[in-house]
């Protein structure tokens, strides 16, 4: 048995690399929790994209005659809410808002925080000091409070929510990128690249940023999980989308709290949706962390 297994095992390390990203993908597909995370995310994304296809109902208009139907009722797998709207439909449409706001806010955070962090890490000195003190101030304000402030200031609306959630992430991204760039600046291979005449721009773009990027990708994936929770949190606090009828998980939770006794499922299902999507991104983020770092290979 061992005799047949040995040649195969010995042959494995000899194969040529198929590229850093390809290798990372291979490692990712061997990571159980990450696969589970990806499965959750696929379900979440499909729900968001295919909501109108899956569900025949309108997420906004319902019939009062149909209100508070228990889960399992014919035609309403997850029951109906206070206004007779199909709960499953609203959760599917809610995924659209969460996905949209989550992705765009994280991208905004990456754009703002990434730029600030790259400038601070690349220039160092006084520039670094000024930028990082601003970042410190932003970090000192609790994320949800900052978001509430921004929504209160700019009024309710989806773009405002995106900006609010993005701004809570930006200082975190700035910190991470700057930290990795500073560490990389003194690393052996950067000094080695300088010793063979690499220009500062090349050092930053080819040597430092790609090495710093992996930690940023991981942070962004994990931030998606937080963003989904933040969006729901804002909705729960009544700072969600301006139209109160919009299917948004956090708003759905608030709307149902008064009926906790009669219809606990109205809290349960949106809650599960939030938890599953957040866990999905968390598991994937951890998996990415392990697979993107070639030095962590097992």
């Amino acid at each position: 048995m061992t005799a047949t297994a040995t040649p195969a095992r010995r042959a494995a390390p000899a194969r040529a690399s198929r590229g850093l990203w390809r290798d990372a993908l291979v490692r990712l597909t061997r990571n159980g929790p990450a696969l589970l995370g990806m499965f959750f995310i696929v379900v979440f994304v499909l729900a968001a994209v295919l909501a109108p296809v899956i569900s025949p109902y309108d997420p906004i208009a319902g019939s009062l005659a149909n209100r508070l139907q228990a889960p399992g009722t014919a035609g309403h797998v997850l029951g109906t809410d206070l206004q007779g709207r199909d709960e499953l439909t609203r959760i599917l449409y809610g995924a659209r808002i969460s996905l949209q706001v989550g992705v765009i806010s994280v991208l905004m955070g990456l754009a703002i925080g990434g730029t600030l962090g790259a400038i601070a890490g690349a220039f160092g000195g006084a520039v670094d000091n000024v930028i990082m003190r601003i970042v410190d101030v932003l970090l000192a304000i609790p994320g949800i409070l900052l978001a509430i402030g921004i929504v209160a200031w700019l009024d309710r609306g989806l773009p405002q929510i995106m900006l609010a959630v993005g701004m809570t992430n930006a200082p975190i991204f700035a910190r991470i990128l700057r930290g990795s760039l500073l560490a990389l600046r003194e690393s052996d291979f950067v000094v080695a690249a300088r010793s063979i005449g690499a220009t500062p721009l090349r050092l930053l773009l080819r040597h430092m940023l790609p090495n710093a990027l992996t930690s940023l990708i991981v942070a962004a994936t994990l931030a998606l999980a937080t963003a989904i929770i933040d969006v729901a949190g804002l909705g729960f606090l009544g700072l969600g989308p301006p139209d109160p009828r919009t299917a948004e998980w956090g708003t759905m939770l608030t709307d149902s709290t008064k009926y906790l006794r009669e219809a606990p499922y109205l809290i349960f299902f949106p809650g599960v949706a939030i938890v599953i999507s957040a866990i999905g991104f968390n598991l994937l983020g951890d998996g990415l962390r392990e697979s993107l770092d070639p030095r962590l290979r097992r």
Partner: protein
Amino acid sequence: MALLEVRDLVVRFRTHDGTIYAVNGITFDVEAGETLGLVGESGCGKSVTNLAIMRLLPKPAGRIERGRVTLDGVDLIALPESEIREMRGRDVAMIFQDPMTSLNPVLTIEEQMVETIVAHRAATRADARKRAVELLGMVGIPHPETRLRSYPHQFSGGMRQRVMIAMALALEPKLLIADEPTTALDVTIQAQVLELLKDLTARLGTAVILITHDLGVVAGMAERINVMYAGFIVETAPTPDLFARPSHPYTVGLLHSIPRVDAAEGGELVPIEGVPPDQRRAPVGCPFAPRCAWRVEACWADNPPLVPLEPVSRLVATGPGATHQIACHNPPLPDEARTGRPTRPGFVAAPPPGAVIDELAVATPDVEATLVEFPTTDAREERR
């Protein structure tokens, strides 16, 4: 004029702890095609000297305070950043100690090598790639075509150091600085890498500064050796001369710290007592005096300059006929150098001047006072 001329180089680091006197006015030459060994303990300024030559000192702490460094007549210290960058890789290249961390982990060997070649030469990527394959073959990497597409983590330490050598020699620099190139490698691999380095640099006519703490490594590689201690050059001589007639107490100490299999006489290990000086203090007197068995009173106050061991009519700075020079008030006699200890009848190392005695007393903890008694009855026994 020598290829590299270093004159009175002074490098200091400004840190939160104060100033570190890393290199304290050293002068040496390297001739084209020559291999110079730079030997000394960790922290003696070997690496800092070479980072200073490359102008790669960590900013803003490290500063060249004084001195001149010229390569082929070009003043490297006065050169603007953009021009020194042009020279790095093309005229001077460097190999680092740890091959595991000196290659970029996210780029393939191809990307890293081609990038270097294209950056300096008006070559197309295809030409640069061809050259990279050739170079990898030259440093003895099997299947260079395929291996070029690999990432650093897919190479062993020895192979990575070969890649580093290939990259450093890609542009056929006039001077190669090898900073402890084999320290991180297995002994068997060390010999291979050194042999390769020797062979390639001889073939390309590259001058080499070989930094090491291992006298065995320089013995086989370097034509000439500078022994450094606490930022000073304390002895310089052609390699055979240095081993035949070590004349500075520190060199003698270094040689007696290495176990020798073939030791017929004086084979006993004589460790150098104490630790290197704290370089946060401005050097006063000979830096080696506190550890030296041959010290005389003058050593505490006056740092001797580097002078010829024997009177010469003309000082030769480079090559196999270079003048043997030492910086010492009381050099060991040849007999003493062999045994590693002063044997002159009645000789006692000069005690440090008053102030230093107090300091030593403070530094030596009182053993009696720190005795702690531990009860011998063990808790478990009591419970029984």
